[in-house]
């Protein structure tokens, strides 16, 4: 049956529930994330504390798989020393 074939997996339902847990009234969007993710990556790499904006970036990265994918790639580049 079509619906059964397309049923959500445990991981997908878990993703929805996790997203809801992380949802707040004020969130940064992807454009704001792109503007600050470089600073966030450098701050994390240096082991420094996050200010309010960077804490917002961290929350957005938990919610947004696309920005998270790009952040992880950026980390790779920074770790390579470029």
């Amino acid at each position, binding site marked *: 049956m079509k619906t059964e074939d397309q049923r959500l997996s445990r991981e997908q339902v878990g993703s929805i529930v996790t997203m809801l847990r992380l949802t707040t009234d004020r969130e940064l969007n*992807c454009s704001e994330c792109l503007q600050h993710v470089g600073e966030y990556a450098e701050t994390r790499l240096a082991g420094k504390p996050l200010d309010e904006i960077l804490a917002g970036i961290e929350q957005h990265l938990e919610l947004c798989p696309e920005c998270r994918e790009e952040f992880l790639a950026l980390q790779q580049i920074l770790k390579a020393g470029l």
Partner: protein
Amino acid sequence: MTPNEINWPAALRAADSAEQSAAMQTLREVLQNGLRIALHGRGDVSEAHLEDFAQESLLRVLDRLDQFAGRSKFTTWAQAIALNTAFTELRRKRWHDVSLDALLANGDHLADPAMIADDVLGADEDRVRLVTVLRQAIEQDLTTKQRAAILGELREMPFDQIVELLGTSRSAAYKMLHDARRALKQRLQEAGITGADIQNAFNL
């Protein structure tokens, strides 16, 4: 001079066109080298793709030069833009043949109670109750477009693709999704299920 020693905003705005061209060429190489590292091992990315991505990224960086606030290294800021450029294009290629009808059909599917099995998170009473409340909220509190966007994201459809198909702006689509998440969260809270409950009980 290493890339980190260059005053990039000044060099890229230089009145001397030779200096400006040299800076652009160097930055293009820096971006391409970064993309080569980040996209290494992907079968769908050739050296020609890297060149195209680097060129497109350079134009986006120049277009946004005024937005660089100096809170990170310039090259880190520019690499983030390059990665966004490259990944956006790669995601778009993967999903290029999805239609609006198919996306909205997703929204209808997600309203079907059979889409989420009672015991998908586990068979104990608390987990089944969470799933029941969630399922009702998805069916009753969300629009077809909101359900479609959520299911599209769960299936890793690029956000830009969802925005394009829905014929809206990025910020409007983000608000639509944010409103949907807040509505679902409120329904869980009204049922006495808090974020802390979810984290503690389900270790998510």
